[in-house]
């Protein structure tokens, strides 16, 4: 898993870490029961503070995505994965609906939208 901190992002550093780890869990880049990088190791690699890293991990823990074992670190929870996927799909559906609404407002037909989708899908 590679975490990248952008100084130009709108999100706070702990939020960037939280989001990227969440995505990595979703993509199963870190598998259930696998350990997250140690807090101090990740802080060193990203050259950020330990407390910032800890905060990101604690947010993930509060959402039930990871759990901590005192003295050993943080691990990915097993059962949450399906729920997370579902949540992601819901988010995407919501964003897609908004997009379709905007397309309709711009007087694009269904065919126009599908054409656009196909073209962009290949390019992305």
């Amino acid at each position, binding site marked *: 898993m590679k975490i990248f901190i952008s100084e130009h992002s709108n999100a706070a550093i702990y939020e960037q870490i939280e989001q990227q780890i969440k995505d990595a869990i979703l993509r199963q880049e870190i598998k259930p029961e696998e350990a997250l990088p140690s807090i101090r190791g990740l802080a060193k690699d990203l*050259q950020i503070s*330990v*407390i910032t890293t800890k905060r990101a991990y604690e947010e993930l823990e509060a959402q039930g995505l990871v759990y901590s074992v005192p003295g050993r670190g943080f691990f990915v929870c097993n059962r949450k994965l399906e729920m997370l996927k579902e949540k992601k799909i819901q988010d995407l559906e919501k964003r897609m609906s908004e997009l379709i609404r905007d397309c309709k407002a711009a007087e694009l037909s269904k065919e126009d939208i599908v054409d656009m989708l196909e073209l962009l899908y290949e390019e992305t």
Partner: protein
Amino acid sequence: MEEALLKVNGISKKYHSFALNEVTFSLEPGYILGLTGRNGAGKTTLIKQLLHPETAASGSVTIAGIDAGKHPVQAKQEMGVLMEEMPFLEDWSLEKNGKLLGAYYEKFSQEAFEKYLRKFELGKGTTYRNLSRGMRMKFQLAFALAYKPKLLLMDEATGGLDVVFRKEFYYLLQEAVEQEMVSVIISTHVTEDLDKVADYVAFMEGGRMKFFESKEELYEKYQNYMRRLHGEAAGHGTVRLEDVIYHYDKLVEGKERQKDECYKADR
């Protein structure tokens, strides 16, 4: 919270034209404290008092359970110091400097010292005089780590060094924090460095410690302040300590003012 490694309680010291006034704070093992403030605010005086609490007018310093005012010699075993003026011998090689000065520290290991020199890419046969400013920093870090102190004190140590060097140096420092669980106090007026690695930030003003807070808390307060000023969308993204310090009084005042306004609105 873990047991504090360093406890500073009401330390005061009076000079002719300057006084360090009742400074109190504590630091847990494995965390980095950034000590900042303008020139003359008392940063260096505070660092000196941590090193020599026996000379303080009042107050106490406890490090790893040792009362440093009563047992200064034992307390110094637990402190590593990085600053511009150090007692190393200019005409001696790094290796000999280690052998000579390492003898003052019970836990000093020449083997560990030379291992760190290799790691930091410093030749042990090099004469101390021939080290560049950046190399001196690394040498001092190698020397300090070789006696396994629990606290590293850095006083304006990276001033005048370029960005690439500082980045590399802080990596080595954070590695020491990770591996040895050492705590660090970095005294500097360059807040960019603290923006990156500091866990806590303490701000000195006129010999007093104006605030001591975790950087996350400070950033959050600043973001909330920006939101109050400019609405929900504002205040996100990268916060700079420089701005937090500049607006600090308003971060707190703002809250009160907002309360007042609510009060007025209620009536």
